[in-house]
């Protein structure tokens, strides 16, 4: 013990103390607690009681669960179709810009910098369903609309996705731009020697070289869209007619919304199930990248 102290063991420990305390109390302890709470009935009045798998049963028997799962999948799907190709196309074109490239990246990235709450509240004004709303006015110039946007169960979800895509695309563009810079120029030169034109170079050199990054952004996008909360919470509160109720919104309602009361057990059970799904995705990602790197 004394040699440990004299060799500086104690001062090392002091340096690690902030990390140990902060991670211990606000990360490791809550993670363990989540697992315990999912099999307990927890409220703030009485002591927690072991209830086995009751919390999971409650969640599974909730008809809203399937609505939430379907809605979340629907959000993720539209986000994929709408938002996945756009940053790639933008980045490929932008990587060839010779002058003012900084201007392109700055403008493309700007929406990412806007605080999400500000973006959502601003878009809520854009989605004004009256014919005098911002989007309805613009579409009116082309003889379209007016649309109901957030007030119709069919258009609400696509409207949410549109805003989310606007807010996030810039970040993905930056990731692709970084990957595009890393493509070895010898590959393009070799392709040119073989007589490849612009399109063939993009298709046969650029795309295969971006394969890894494309998969990373795909999985990252699915992971983040399956945890979508802010947009449905602030735009629609889950409505109309639960058409934008997502899994995270349901977790929030279990735990913190007054109408259902603080059912912390069910909330933790559902978040654990979501976490297992997300972990499976990450595992899939690791497995895919590993099998590629060995081949």
């Amino acid at each position, binding site marked *: 013990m004394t040699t440990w102290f004299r060799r500086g063991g104690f*001062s*090392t*420990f002091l*340096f*690690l103390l902030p*990390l140990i305390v*902060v991670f211990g109390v*606000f*990360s*490791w*302890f809550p*993670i363990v*607690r989540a697992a315990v*709470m999912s099999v307990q009935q927890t409220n*703030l009045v009485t002591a927690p009681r072991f209830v086995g798998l009751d919390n999971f049963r409650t969640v599974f028997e909730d008809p809203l669960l399937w609505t939430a799962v379907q809605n979340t999948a629907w959000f993720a799907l539209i986000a994929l179709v709408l938002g996945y190709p756009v940053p790639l196309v933008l980045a490929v*074109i932008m990587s*060839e810009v*010779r002058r*003012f*490239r900084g201007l392109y*990246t700055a*403008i*493309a*990235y*700007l*929406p990412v*910098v*806007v*605080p*999400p*709450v*500000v973006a959502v*509240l601003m878009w809520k*004004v854009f989605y*004004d369903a009256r014919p*005098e*709303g911002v989007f309805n006015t*613009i579409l009116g110039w082309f003889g379209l609309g007016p649309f109901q946007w957030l007030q119709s169960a069919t258009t609400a979800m696509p409207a949410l996705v549109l805003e989310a895509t*606007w807010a996030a695309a810039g970040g993905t563009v*930056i*990731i692709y731009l*970084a990957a595009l*810079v890393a493509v070895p*120029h010898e590959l*393009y*030169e070799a392709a*040119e020697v073989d007589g490849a034109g*612009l399109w063939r170079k993009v298709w046969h050199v*650029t795309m295969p070289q971006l394969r890894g990054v494309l998969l*990373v952004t795909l999985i990252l996008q699915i992971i983040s869209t399956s*945890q979508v*909360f802010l947009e449905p919470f*602030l735009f629609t509160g889950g409505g109309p007619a639960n058409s934008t109720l997502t899994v995270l919104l349901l*977790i929030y309602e279990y735990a913190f919304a007054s109408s259902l009361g603080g059912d*912390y057990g069910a*909330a*933790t059970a559902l978040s654990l199930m979501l*976490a297992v799904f997300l*972990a499976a995705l990450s595992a899939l990602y690791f497995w895919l*990248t590993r099998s590629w790197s060995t081949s």
Partner: protein
Amino acid sequence: MSTPTRTRPPAPRTPAAAPPPASGRRRGRAAEPVVRGIVSPSEWRTPRVRTGLGLTQVVLLAALVVVSLGPMAWLVKAALTPTQDTLRDPMAFFPNGVDWANLSTAWTSVHIDLHFANSMIVAVGAWLVQLVVATTGGYALSVLRPRYGPVLYWLVLSTLFVPAVVLLVPLYLTVLSPPLLGASLINTFWAVWLPAGANAFNVLLAKRFFDNLPGEIFEAARIDGAGPLRVFWSVLLPMSRPILGVISVFAFVAAWKDFLWPLLVLPDPDLQPLSVRLPTLASSIELDILLAALMISALIPVVLFLVFQRTFLRTAGLGGALKG
């Protein structure tokens, strides 16, 4: 001390084994003709490619301006327009003049000033806590290297794989009655600051950066009689500015943007930062005042971005490369 601060290590700009983030420097070193993209120099000289690509790029710029800048420009316009004008014809350009009073009304009578200050307090505190945890922890794990270090580092990294959803409820209950403290952290800024410090990504970035610093410098400082604290403060930190910048941008912006967590732990309206307070205000105040408030809230991050563009974009590239 053998002036170790003068020796500049080869700054490892990308601690990750990942594609280097985009730097706007490709054109800066025009002397090297090898730096090129998909289009070859000879293709650039053909008129077909030149006009075609040039045109595509102009169209792209126009589209970016409309889609990206358009909403922001509209917000600035509408923030200075009376409510009735915005409601009647939102796309008209100041039909009845500019209403500068919106900004001062939002600032004073809706107390955007208070919430602005709260946002600042939240962001600066979260930033400081994250810097302290990441630098001290990274230093101990990378330079001092105790025997239990690898286990601790593994425990830190493993939290990267736990999605934030899982923590929401148990973390809330922990903050409600923290162990060994006896007092609830709800409605104190500590409830936002401290959990922000438990960010494995920061520790990872800091440790990897410190790992790449030349160890002889620390050795030399130690032989010259510098204690661990002195090495940390006078040797390590001055050499770590690039990574401190990245962590700072991450920390400050994330804290400024955060919504759900401060909403849960700061129920007192007088303590709420802008992002938490704005949605509540949205339903109770006039539209033009709300839009003015939105503009004010977007201002700080946008200005920060324009000033520290390079750090922001490097951070964005890094985030994508490392999260995977």
